[in-house]
């Protein structure tokens, strides 16, 4: 019981330890501007992590996340700005394609990794077609959204809390979320309860597409312009964020609040290593080490829980 609670608190605890270390090394970060600069690039990553989490909740993995967010960024910096209606149609169509991919994977019983890996080339190709050379411009409202300075709490923190709250409600509190996690946990029992697995999976993929679209738009709001390769790192970052935040690859065991915290932790880990002046040759290794430490702690807690439970 206590170890289960501990396990849920672990992501928040890791984030707090990192944040205190960063404050200690670089006191300038302990300010409104500092917090915003530390975390604003984590906002689109948090959205992509929620999207990835919805796919992982139905026991699949999306390897096209980075390419898709890049594609959305390119659409946002071109069509969504110049011809908003067409832009919205394209993005709605893209969410539809996500639902179709979910259906295809289920109906043909294909491995999601292979299909989404294939889709990553489709999205990458479309992104290059839309924006052959880096450029475009963010829609003014997206720019405004990311530049806004709410009183007291920086935008990045407000946005993270909002994303975590909405995702928590959607996945943990609504019946839609229960069914999605049920499909990940025990597909047949959900089917026997009278739900169409096909539509549940399509809905899970579509909502993942929706969050990924938000990630792409907000990313462009931050960077002001797009690039066909802008978010390729998001594929691995989003998977790592879900796992770091307490999610499991199978069984529908995911945590939206944890996922957002995971995304923030990953972003902060990069800044932490940079402030420590660790050479770039070691940074990937050090980032990996932070991941391994957190996951090792979790395995330890799982063990102690099993020992106590049985």
């Amino acid at each position, binding site marked *: 019981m206590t170890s289960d609670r501990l396990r849920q608190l672990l992501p928040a605890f890791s984030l707090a330890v990192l944040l205190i270390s960063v404050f200690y090394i670089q006191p300038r970060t302990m300010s409104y501007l500092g917090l915003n600069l530390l975390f604003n690039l984590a906002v689109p990553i948090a959205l992509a992590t929620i999207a990835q989490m919805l796919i992982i909740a139905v026991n699949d993995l999306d390897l096209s996340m980075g390419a898709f967010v890049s594609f959305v960024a390119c659409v946002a910096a071109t069509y969504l700005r110049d011809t908003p209606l067409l832009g919205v149609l394209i993005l709605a169509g893209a969410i539809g394609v996500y639902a179709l991919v979910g259906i295809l994977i289920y109906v043909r019983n294909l491995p999601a990794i292979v299909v989404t890996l294939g889709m990553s080339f489709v999205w990458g190709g479309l992104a290059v077609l839309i924006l052959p050379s880096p450029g475009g411009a963010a829609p003014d409202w997206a720019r405004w959204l990311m530049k806004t300075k709410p009183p007291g709490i920086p935008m990045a923190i407000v946005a993270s809390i909002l994303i975590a709250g909405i995702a928590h409600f959607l996945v943990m509190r609504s019946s839609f979320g229960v069914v999605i996690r049920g499909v990940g946990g025990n597909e047949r029992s959900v089917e026997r309860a009278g739900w169409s697995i096909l539509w549940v999976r399509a809905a899970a993929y579509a909502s993942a597409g929706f969050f990924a679209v938000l990630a792409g738009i907000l990313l462009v709001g931050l960077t002001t312009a797009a690039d066909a390769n802008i*978010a390729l790192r998001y594929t691995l970052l989003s998977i790592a964020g879900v796992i770091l935040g307490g999610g499991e690859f199978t069984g529908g065991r995911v945590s939206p609040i944890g996922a957002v915290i995971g995304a923030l932790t990953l972003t902060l880990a990069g800044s932490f290593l940079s402030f420590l002046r660790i050479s770039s040759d070691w940074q990937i290794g050090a980032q990996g080490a932070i991941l391994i430490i957190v996951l090792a702690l979790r395995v330890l807690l799982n063990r102690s829980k099993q020992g106590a439970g049985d």
Partner: protein
Amino acid sequence: MNKFTLATLTLALSMGTTLATFPAFADTASKKIALSNNYAGNSWRQAMLTSWDKVTGAAVSSGVVAAADTFTTAENQATEQAAQIQNLILQGYDAIVINAASPTALNGAVKEACDAGIVVVSFDGIVTEPCAYRIAVDFAGMGKSQLDYLSEKIPDGGNLLELRGLAGVFVDDEISAGIHAGVAENPQFKIVGSVHGDWAQDVAQKAVAGILPSLPEIAAVVTQGGDGYGSAQAFAAAGRDVPLIIMGNRHDELLWWKEQKDATGYETMSVSIAPGVSTLAFWVAQQILDGATVPQDLTVPFLKITQDTLEESLETTQAGGVANVEYTLDDAKATIKSSM
């Protein structure tokens, strides 16, 4: 106190501008400059970092600036570099010199830096954010200079094989556009084949070997750098006469050229960007911090090696490296002046 420093600063500035030859270093002695670099995985980038360390190390120890630290991102990704730049803002640097992963995707972070009063100078991989300074390379001019040379060397013209760089990178598009513009001006030349050598000798060799059997007689090979030696090997392996191949300042290319020159009197030219352009960016940043008026857009000259300067360049180029020049403060001032 603040007013006083401001007054001395303005005084020193006006002195610096009136006495242009007098180095007004006092103003930047407390300034910290950071280099934000997106990639360090090839010989050109390694030489770029070495040049930076050499020139800025001397500048720091002689008190021109307080610090000139380098930061390279672990993965060549724009979002990672944007985060790195935001970290540099928090670390309190006065100027950030950037070789960017993307000309546009860093604009948000660059704007944050400008808003925080930080001078941003981009070079090689430049950023489009208007508040940043750009030291751009005239890649199109580099491509066109190859045709200028060829039209003099082979007035009768002939067939050309074009080697391109990494597909989808704007440098490749620019150089290629320059080459095609040169061909349009000199219609006696005709590009009969085009392959991607990815700026790497082994890739270039394979690509040229693949297309060679389908090609007529080739008068010259136009290149982008890092692909000349591989092309020569492919021609030799196919048993064909090695045509005039433009080189790209790499050590293996210069060495091969020297061997051919000694053996058969082979003639060509070599052109590329000196990795030491990072040091030019450093001095430009220092000048801006010093209060000099600098236009937002500067152009860096490319480094050309001719038949006469081959031996000299080969001697100063390290094995596995690229021919290089390091820039001085006076070079920076000259570049600024010529761009005004």
